[in-house]
């Protein structure tokens, strides 16, 4: 069922003035949608959605019970459920450890918790290019002696000679 988590008081609000609802739409666990969803508020999906989701200036959350197969345009995206598809986010994409994600992510920034089940292609805003350096050449046998690099343990060198 589609729900608002903040109800508008229709008794007092004038009917001719659009109510500036700053709420969130929830697609419940028992709901399945096949098609395009467009919106101008945050969206939480706990049900199943297949198609396209456009909440361009808002947050999309795929809850832990959510199952989504879609192309997504949003400002910010949080994934805790299962999502197959491509995300184009103007802000941040957050992937929690409960998430199962397969697809492409284009975003300004990303956070991923250890343990997330991930197969992704990620494009973030790149750092300015660095000065090129000579390419690496394969070692010959005589140059294969390993170079010692001491390991630092909490600021202490353990390299013993």
């Amino acid at each position, binding site marked *: 069922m589609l729900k608002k988590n903040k109800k508008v008081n229709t008794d007092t609000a004038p009917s001719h003035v659009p109510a500036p609802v700053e709420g969130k739409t929830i697609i419940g666990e028992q709901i399945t949608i096949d098609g395009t969803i467009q919106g101008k508020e945050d969206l939480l999906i706990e049900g199943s959605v297949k198609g396209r989701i456009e909440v361009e200036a808002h947050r999309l959350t795929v809850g832990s019970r959510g199952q989504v197969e879609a192309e997504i345009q949003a400002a910010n995206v949080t994934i805790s459920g299962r999502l197959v598809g491509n995300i184009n986010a103007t802000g941040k994409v957050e992937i929690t450890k409960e998430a199962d994600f397969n697809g492409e992510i284009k975003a300004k920034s990303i956070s991923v*918790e*250890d343990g997330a089940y991930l*197969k992704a292609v*990620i494009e*973030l805003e790149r750092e300015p290019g660095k000065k090129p350096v000579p390419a690496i050449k*394969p070692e010959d046998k005589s140059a294969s002696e390993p170079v010692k*690099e001491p*390991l630092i*343990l909490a600021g202490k060198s353990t390299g013993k000679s």
Partner: protein
Amino acid sequence: MATFATSADRPWKDPDLEPNAIEYNSNVLQLFMEGLDCQPPGQVLDLGPVCQENISFFARRVKRLYVCDMFIRLERCLGKGDSVGRIWQELDYPPESFDGILLWELADRLDDKEVRTLVKLCHTILKPGGMAVVLVLGEQIARFGVNSFVVGQDFKVRLRPQPHLHLPIRSRQNRDVLAMMTPLNPAKSFICRPGFMEFLFTRD
């Protein structure tokens, strides 16, 4: 020859040797990034475990970062009793897709046959001249269990335990590792501590 041990039931006793306390400067990662910087922005594949810091680090330096966590896939596969060979179908990328592949210590978690399958796949999906980063932990570090290798500023790497992963460890001699990585060519190797080595391999 490879030996087999389960690392999950080996608590570390020396607090100085806890994974969180370990950090080192990675020469191989520095060479890897320098190699990538020599060419137009390319594509890198990270085989996991997924690590927020590494995703941000590499995704801001390459054109496209591919992440396919084979550690968690291996964990689930072993947990179900499935054949390990099934996980390789996840690496269904077109031939010569990548300028670099980050294998980390994945080979240490696989038997010889599966390492050869992995290397063959990597050879196929690497571009000519592409690079692969391989870590060989050795018994002393491997007893910590599975860690992610968190890359920080100036290629300083610290270990972060992955308690959700309980994978077996295969301890190998360096020469065995080099033999198994054929047909990739060893480009550089560095000892970080006894038994803990970093390797950079390249494809012809």
